[in-house]
């Protein structure tokens, strides 16, 4: 037994050494920003949700208007619409869900953030993504940084050589502007010959085969909760429908079709939707798309322009 225990102790020591090394690595590099030892995230994706909520709570008087969306809304720089009465913050983050948006709104209100405007960006993720699936994801699990407890699990995350060596910085990537406007800033995103002033090329959505209707009751119920909450708190709420690329449409036709079904159901349920490109798709171009899913700031700016006109037509929206 003694000999066995010696061997086990040796193996235990190896495990201990491994975790000590990963603890030092995670504390020093803090890739997700949860341990609050890092403030810049060039080339790496921090836990944007927690960091952005933390920033708003720490600056509760600075912002009164919020865009909630998944990462697709990162290029919608709403702070360009800032004026004397509206101060926007981009509360978008990877795979954000309406359940989480509602949670954050309540948290803001409870912490004296005076909310005036809210825009909720919608895409296919509304149907498929669930907040519960983020519990085990270091980059997406919501951590209230106002709590002073130590988030031990973040100390023992695996060591990533890519992050450690900070490689891939020359490639196209996002800079997470958490501590200013919340916007995503693209780095090395556009080809040199990209004409940012040319008109967007939009194409009609191809006809699809009909698909059986899904049960959208849980999604509708969450969105209604948000709508009721905003009404009760006197917040201007808009539902913005993100545009889709032709390429993404072709790749996930079924999902897109189901999303359109959801939008139809929402309209039947009296939700008012702002659909900047109606049912049209935007042609594939590296000037318009960072990848097949995320549009560039050029598209984002067009949407903002349309949003301004949409608001001007009926300020009550």
């Amino acid at each position, binding site marked *: *037994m003694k*000999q*066995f225990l010696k*061997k*086990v102790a040796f*193996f235990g020591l*190896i*495990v201990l050494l*491994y*975790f000590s090394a*990963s603890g030092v690595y995670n504390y020093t590099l803090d890739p997700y920003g949860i341990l609050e030892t890092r403030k810049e995230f060039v080339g790496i994706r921090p836990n944007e949700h927690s960091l952005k909520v933390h920033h708003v709570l720490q600056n509760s008087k600075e912002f009164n208007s919020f865009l909630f969306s998944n990462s697709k809304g990162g290029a919608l720089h709403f702070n360009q619409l800032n004026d004397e009465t509206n101060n926007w913050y981009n509360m978008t983050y990877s795979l954000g869900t309406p359940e989480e948006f509602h949670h954050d709104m309540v948290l803001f209100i409870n912490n004296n953030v005076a909310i005036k405007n809210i825009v909720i960006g919608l895409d296919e993720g509304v149907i498929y993504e669930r907040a519960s699936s983020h519990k*085990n*994801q*270091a980059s997406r699990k919501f951590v209230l940084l106002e709590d002073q407890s130590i988030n031990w*699990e973040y100390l*023992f*995350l*695996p*060591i990533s050589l890519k992050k450690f060596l900070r490689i891939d910085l020359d490639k196209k990537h996002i800079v997470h502007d958490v501590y200013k406007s919340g916007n995503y800033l693209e780095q090395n995103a556009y080809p040199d010959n990209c004409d940012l002033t040319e008109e967007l090329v939009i194409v009609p959505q191809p006809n699809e085969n009909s698909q059986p209707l899904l049960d959208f009751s849980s999604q509708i119920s969450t969105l209604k909760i948000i709508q009721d909450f905003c009404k009760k708190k006197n917040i201007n709420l808009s539902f913005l429908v993100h545009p889709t690329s032709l390429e993404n449409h072709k*790749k996930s036709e079924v999902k897109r079709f189901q999303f359109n079904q959801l939008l139809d159901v929402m309209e039947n349920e009296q939700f008012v939707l702002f659909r900047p490109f109606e049912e049209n798709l935007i042609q594939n171009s590296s000037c318009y798309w960072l990848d097949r899913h995320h549009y560039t700031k050029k598209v984002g700016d067009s949407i903002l322009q349309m949003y301004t006109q949409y608001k001007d037509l009926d300020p009550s929206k």
Partner: protein
Amino acid sequence: MLFNSLEFLVFLIVVFALYWFVFNKRNYQNALLLCSSYFFYGWWDYRFLILILFSTLVDYFVGLAIENSQENSKRKLLLWLSIAFNIGVLGFFKYYNFFVDSLVEVLNSVGYAMESTWSLNIILPVGISFYTFQTMSYTIDVYRKNLKPTDDFISFAAFVSFFPQLVAGPIERASNLLPQILNSRKFTYEKGIQGLRLILWGLVKKVVIADTLALKVDDIFENYTDFGGGVLWLGALYFAIQIYCDFSGYSDIAIGVSKLFGIELKSNFKFPYFSRNIGEFWRRWHISLSTWFRDYLYIPLGGSKGLKWQSLRNVFVIFLVSGFWHGANWTFIVWGGIHALLFVPSYILGSNRKYTGAIVAENSWFPSLKEVLQIVITFFFVVLAWVFFRSDNLTVAVEYLIIMFTKFDFPPTYKNGLYSVGSLLILDWMFRKDERLSFPFLKEVNKKSILLLEIVSIILVVYLISLNSNSGQFIYFQF
């Protein structure tokens, strides 16, 4: 509590220390095993502990009552009481909704329109298929007078709930496990080290191989219409290896953990993918389940005795029931049916018991050409059958198979997948003679190299566990 989690590591260290250093008398050790097993199970959902307790109580008292009864009719009645209870619990929690929904579908298809209002929101208790079979085998063995029942309730309850194999087997027979629990255990260095190596090997299979393949398998099976036949073949091959590494990895860990407590469990896998026919495959795959069905279903039905049609019926019954045991879905039943069909030719020709002994090429490095062909053909059909096992429903399985055989494109980006499948099979081939996984080749290797190998494996496993902290549960937990 998952074997591939840090909480299990802490749990194991604490129980091991208490078992050998604090409660080192047999009775105390059994009480500790019982408490720790209930804690281990309760970590998932303590509410279902009541089911294990009931199952234990029923079979404990039924076992004693059968032993004390002289009348055959009373003994039989008691046996059926135990079977009805265990099958009733299993049937309710696992199959109730399946039967209700299937009945409604049948009624609808014959024009009697109705909606399923009887379906219930039932949670499937983890491991229920395993421990109910284990307790049933005890009562049947007592009834058959193959086993003396024990009046030591704590030991019996520890046998039913023994944590290393409680949730995903191997399904142990009372004749093997109970005497070990009733007698004193002794710790030896060799057993302890062997146990640790088995745990490490099982974790490598689970965390390094199965969990990595799971991501690819899920992607291919969930988006099968996006791919050509070549990629779907790769997906089916990946799944064959995933389920093997996942389940045999669990069994290796269970056997390894048991060794740390001085208890030997039986082998559950013996390199099934090197089988020369389906009969041999089933003597090497999930052995504890196939032998259970052989001894407690096939033989009581008449086995191979009687008329040919009766034996064929018996073959179909055990394969279909075996498929159904895996889950309340027609895909599992069809999977069982396919294996029955594959088994029938060798059964009719009388060659089904041809390879009951040693593994192929036991005395050489390479198999003969005939053996290669036999292995490839058997593996080919086993992989095809896995498509039904993995698919969500029969329509998906059939569509998946149609694409496999009609669209032959194979993007070069996937060719690395074939290399990895080939490498894993070669690795498995190299170990094939070591059925108990005692790693005898290590005796030839110098101590420093062994140590280095162990250190690298430990770091790799710990790294991968932390990398994949939401690591998939063991596939067989759902059964």
